[in-house]
């Protein structure tokens, strides 16, 4: 059975509303929510709009459990400045993991191998973040042997079925995909941008005010505006195409978007639970959301594209498929 992991912005009212819709509409595939932890302990790959204290995490986890939903705390900063490897850092993470475990949290998502190693001491699931950049059976095997219960693979290989199949066959743990991340394929900013986000969402801030606050984001948006084919090349997965991944043994799917609004999250949850969406693909992508006001990528016109992408060698200058598809499916809104 397919399992959907839903982003939770962090405030209790949002959790209640997400679960209410899931139950009222019988969205049975939804079995987990995830939210950011406290920036006091660690930053995160996304902005943190809420800093839940342990009592709140406990209260929300209890509520989720009453409704048959698991709670996942996302602590996937890609850089802590080495703090976690200091004695102080070790003590802090040990204390925090122990408290999360006492609060009933089911899983913790981390990017750093050291934290995966530490999580072996707790019954909570160790989930490897997509920010560990697992993009090969070799690296997947490493995290599997380190003690991971679940690996979220690098979204860059979402359309590399040979690698995905290889990873599924190489590991004993489960494999998870993020379905609606719209980052540039093989993004040149990816490592730098997530390092920046990790610092900005933590107490470990840059020492001086930023002069070019989010160079990577601004550049990313501009690149796509000049070359909208990049939007089609991104590794998002249409709701209708989940079955293709089930066929190779992947049944865990995560929606991205914990910094987005409650109703947007609920809409995406519906589309992926029903595996059907009639509209602008940019409306269901976590990022770059602002482009949905300018560009319309018709999901219906992308039907069948997965058949090409499954076997595509990704040598774009020799192929041209995504360029042709962009001409057919993408329009500029007036």
């Amino acid at each position: 059975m397919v399992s959907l992991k839903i982003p939770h912005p962090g405030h209790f009212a949002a959790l209640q509303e997400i679960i209410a819709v899931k139950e009222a509409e019988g969205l049975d595939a939804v079995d987990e929510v995830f939210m950011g932890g406290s920036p006091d302990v660690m930053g995160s790959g996304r902005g943190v709009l809420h800093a839940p204290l342990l009592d709140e995490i406990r209260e929300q986890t209890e509520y989720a459990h009453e409704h048959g939903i698991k709670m996942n705390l996302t602590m996937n900063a890609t850089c802590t400045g080495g703090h976690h490897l200091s004695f102080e850092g070790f003590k802090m993470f040990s204390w925090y993991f122990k408290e999360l475990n006492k609060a009933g949290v089911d899983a913790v998502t981390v990017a750093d191998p050291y934290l995966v190693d530490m999580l072996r001491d707790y019954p909570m699931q160790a989930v490897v973040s997509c920010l560990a950049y697992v993009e090969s059976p070799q690296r997947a095997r490493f995290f599997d042997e380190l003690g991971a219960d679940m690996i979220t693979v690098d979204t860059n290989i979402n359309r590399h079925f040979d690698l995905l199949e290889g990873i599924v066959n190489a590991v004993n743990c489960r494999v998870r995909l993020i379905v609606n991340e719209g980052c540039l394929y093989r993004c040149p900013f990816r490592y730098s941008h997530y390092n920046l986000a990790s610092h900005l969402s933590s107490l470990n801030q840059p020492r001086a005010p930023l002069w070019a606050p989010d160079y990577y984001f601004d550049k990313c948006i501009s690149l796509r505006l000049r070359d909208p084919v990049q939007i089609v090349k991104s590794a998002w997965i249409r709701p209708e195409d989940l079955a293709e991944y089930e066929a190779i043994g992947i049944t865990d799917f995560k929606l991205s978007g914990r910094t987005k609004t409650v109703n947007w999250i609920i809409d995406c949850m519906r589309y992926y639970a029903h595996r059907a969406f009639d509209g602008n693909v940019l409306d269901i992508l976590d990022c770059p959301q602002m482009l949905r006001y300018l560009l319309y990528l018709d999901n219906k016109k992308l039907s069948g594209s997965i058949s090409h992408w499954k076997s595509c060698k990704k040598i774009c200058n020799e192929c041209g498929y995504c360029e042709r598809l962009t001409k057919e499916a993408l329009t500029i809104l007036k």
Partner: protein
Amino acid sequence: MTETITEGRTKLESELRNMVGNVFVPEAKVFGMACGCTGFAADLRGLQVDAVEVFREKITTLLEEISASVEVKPEFIYARKLPGSEEVVILTTRQLCERCRREFAGSKAPPRPDIIVLKKKR
């Protein structure tokens, strides 16, 4: 219009100072968004969440007045706090487009954890 915006900024700062003490409004603006929303927004320093809660009605009324003066229907009024803190950094009134009426202002819960909803037109 430019004078009205400036007057709105001054009025907001002055009234907030009367209510809670030393508040600074460095910038106020009328904006139009790509989605179709329009609005009035005031950047703030010195205002905290508990003050917004205590003076919720007065602040809401004040924002409604200023918003009307710059020709923005205040359908959705909210404060945004700095994530992870109690500092309120922006007060906004918004005349909503159809999409945002549902997606941004349509949930029972605040749309995001950093947003405190002061008024929602039903």
